[in-house]
C-alpha cells in the first residue's frame, strides 16, 4: 500500500492523466497556465505602460467597443471620451471621430523577458483616445495593464513564499513527529514561540531595517522570505500530528527493520503519506499569500504605489465611493478571486490524480 513516487517523469504523467478526468481541475490548470503566460508577456498584452497617467481620464469607465456604425458592419472602433464633470467624473463620447482598434501597434517601450526592448503591443488605438478595456483608476492608468503587471509581482512572490515555507514545514514537522521525545518537544515549543510573535510588529520592524533605496516590491519580497522562515510552524504542527500516527504503521516499522536511515525513512516513507494534505494545504496557501498581501495593503504595509500588485488594486476598491460610482475598479477583485478559485480546483484535481487511494 506504499505510494510509489520514484521518478519525476511518472509523477508528472500521472498528474496530467489524472487531471484530465477532473473537469474543473483541468480547466483550472489551463487558466493558471494562461495566466502565467499572460503575466510573462504582460508588456506585449497590455496596451499601455502601467504607470502612464492620463490626467483628464481619471476613473474612466470601460470603453464601449463598437462594431456597427451608420453604414453597417465596421472594423471594431471606439470613440474618444472627454471629461464633462470633474466632481462626478462624467464622460461624454466625441462621436465625430472613430478610432479603429489596431493590432500590433507601437506604444510605450517595455522589456521582453526583462531583457529585449520592444514597443509592439497586441492592440491599441491612436492618441488621444484610450482603449480602457477594464476602465481606468484614479490617476487615469489602464487597469488591464496594471492587472497584468500586478499579477507578475503577486504570483511570483506568492510562489517563492509557498515554496520556502513548505520545505521548512515538511522537514520540521517530519522530524518532530518521527523522533518524538525531546526533539519533538523542543521543535514544537520553538514553533509556538515563533507563532506568537506579532506579525504586524515584525513587519513594521522589518520594513524599517531594510534600506529605503530598495523599492517596495523588493522589500516585500524580502519580507515574504523572512515570513516563510517563521511561517513553517503552523504546517509543521499538522504534519507532525499526522506523522505521529504514520510512524506506527507497518511499512515504517518494516523499513526500520531493514535498517534504513532515519532521514531516508522520513523523506521516502513518512512524508509521502502526508502528500494529500500537503497538496491541499499548498494549493490553499498560494492564494493565502495573495490574500495576505491584500490584507497587508489594507494596513498600508504591502506593496506600495506606484507599483501595481493585486493586493493594492483590491485595496483601492474598498471605499464606498468606488463601490457606488466606479464599480469597474472591482474587476481586478473578481479576477483575483477567480484565480484563487482556480488554484483551489487545481489542488483538488491534483490530489485526485496523485493519490492512488483516491482512484476509483
Amino acid at each position, binding site marked *: 500500500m506504499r505510494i510509489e513516487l520514484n521518478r519525476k517523469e511518472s509523477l508528472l504523467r500521472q498528474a496530467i492523466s489524472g487531471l484530465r478526468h477532473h473537469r474543473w481541475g483541468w480547466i483550472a490548470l489551463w487558466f493558471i497556465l494562461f495566466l502565467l503566460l499572460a503575466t510573462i508577456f504582460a508588456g506585449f498584452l497590455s496596451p499601455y505602460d502601467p504607470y502612464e497617467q492620463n490626467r483628464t481620464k481619471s476613473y474612466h469607465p470601460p470603453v464601449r467597443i463598437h462594431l456597427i456604425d451608420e453604414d453597417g458592419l465596421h472594423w471594431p472602433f471606439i470613440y474618444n471620451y472627454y471629461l464633462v464633470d470633474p466632481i462626478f467624473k462624467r464622460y461624454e463620447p466625441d462621436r465625430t471621430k472613430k478610432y479603429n482598434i489596431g493590432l500590433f501597434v507601437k506604444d510605450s517601450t517595455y522589456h521582453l523577458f526583462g531583457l529585449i526592448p520592444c514597443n509592439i503591443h497586441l492592440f491599441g488605438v491612436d492618441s488621444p483616445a484610450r482603449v480602457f478595456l477594464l476602465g481606468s483608476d484614479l490617476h487615469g492608468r489602464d487597469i488591464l495593464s496594471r492587472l497584468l503587471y500586478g499579477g507578475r509581482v503577486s504570483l511570483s512572490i506568492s510562489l517563492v513564499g509557498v515554496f520556502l515555507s513548505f520545505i521548512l514545514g515538511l522537514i520540521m514537522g517530519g522530524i518532530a513527529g518521527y523522533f518524538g521525545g525531546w526533539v519533538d518537544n523542543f521543535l514544537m515549543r520553538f514553533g*509556538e*514561540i515563533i507563532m*506568537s510573535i506579532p506579525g504586524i510588529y515584525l513587519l513594521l520592524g522589518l520594513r524599517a*531595517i531594510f534600506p529605503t533605496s530598495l523599492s517596495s516590491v523588493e522589500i516585500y519580497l524580502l519580507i515574504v522570505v523572512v515570513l516563510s522562515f517563521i511561517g513553517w510552524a503552523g504546517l509543521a504542527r*499538522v504534519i507532525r500530528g*499526522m506523522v505521529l500516527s504514520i510512524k506506527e504503521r507497518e511499512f515504517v516499522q518494516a523499513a526500520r527493520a531493514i535498517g534504513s536511515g532515519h532521514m531516508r525513512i522520513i523523506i521516502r516513507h513518512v512524508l509521502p503519506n502526508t502528500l494529500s494534505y500537503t497538496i491541499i494545504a499548498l494549493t490553499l496557501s498560494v492564494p493565502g499569500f495573495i490574500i495576505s498581501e491584500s490584507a497587508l495593503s489594507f494596513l498600508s504595509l504591502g506593496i506600495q504605489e506606484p507599483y501595481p500588485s493585486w493586493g493594492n488594486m483590491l485595496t483601492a476598491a474598498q471605499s464606498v465611493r468606488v*463601490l457606488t460610482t466606479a464599480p469597474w475598479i472591482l474587476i481586478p477583485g473578481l479576477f483575483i478571486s477567480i484565480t484563487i478559485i482556480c488554484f*483551489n480546483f487545481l489542488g483538488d484535481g491534483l490530489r485526485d490524480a496523485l493519490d492512488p*487511494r*483516491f482512484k476509483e
Partner: protein
Amino acid sequence: MIRYILHRFINMIPLLFGITFLSFGIMKLAPGDFLSQMALNPLISSETIELMRKQFGLDQPWPIQYLKWLWGIIHFDFGYSFTYRVPVATLITERVLNTLLLTSTAAILAWLLALPLGVYTALWRKSLFDQILSFFSFATISVPTFFLALLGVFFAAKTGWFPTGGAISINYAALSPFDKLCDRFHHLILPAMVLGIGGLGSLLRIVRTNFLEMMRQPFIMTAKAKGLHSNTVTWRHIFPNAINPLITLLGFEIAGLLSGAAFTEIIFAWPGLGRLILEAVMSQDLYLVMGSLFMGAILLILGNLLADILLATIDPRIKLR
C-alpha cells in the same frame, strides 16, 4: 497523563518568557516610539516630549524596560496604556468578552456546519450538492475577510436590515431585557456570519478530504469486507481517524479566538480586542500591545495543549510522553 500536563505547564514558563522577550525586542526594532507622533505638532516642544518619554520610562535601554515590565507581570500589573492613560488590564477586560462573543459564535457556526457537511459531501462525492458546496467553499476562501466584511457593511447600509456596525443600539439602555437580547443578537448576526463563512470554506475542504482519505484506508476496506454496517464503519472507524488533523486545527482555532477577528471587528466597528490591539500596534502603545500579546500567547499554548490531549484520547496510537 497528569504528569504530562503538569510537565507542559512547567514548560509554559520559559516559553512565555521567550515569547515576550522576543516580541519586546522586535517591537523595539521598529523605529520611533509612541511619542514620535507628537514630534510633528508645531505646538509641542521637544522638551515636553522628552519629559513625557522619561515619565513613560521610554528613555531607558529596552532590556531594562523589559525587566520592569516582567516584574510588573509577576505582580499581575500589566502597566499603563500610553494612549489611554488607564491600566492595560482594565482596557483589555472591557473588550475581551465582546471579542469572545463574536469569535466563538463564528467558530461554533463554522464547525457545526463544516463537520456534517464535510462528511456528507465525502460520502456523496461528485454529487450535485458536493459540487455546489465545493464551489461555495472555494469562493469563500477566495475573498479576503476584510473585503467580505466591507460588502457586508455595504449590504447592511443599502437594505437597512442590519445595523452598519457596533454591538448595541443607541437606545439600548431604555430597552426591556428581552429587547436588549434581541438588539445584541441583531448586531451580532452579520459580523459573525462574515467571520464564520470565512472559516467555513477551508474547514469544509479539510473535513471532506480527510474523510475521503480515511475511506480508502485498508482497515476500512477490511471492515467493510467483514460486512460491518456502513453507518458503523463511518462513525466508529472513519470519523475518529479523519478528525486527527482537525484536532490540531481546533487548537489553532482556540489560539485565534482573541486575535482572529481584527479585520471584521475594525470594519464592523465591533468593540473588541482586535481593533484595540491594531490601534495600539500602529501607535506603538508598548504595554497595551505586550499585555494583549501575553494573553494571546497563553491562549495559544493552552489551545495547543488541549489539542495534544484530545489527539491522544481519540487516536490510541499516539502516546504522550
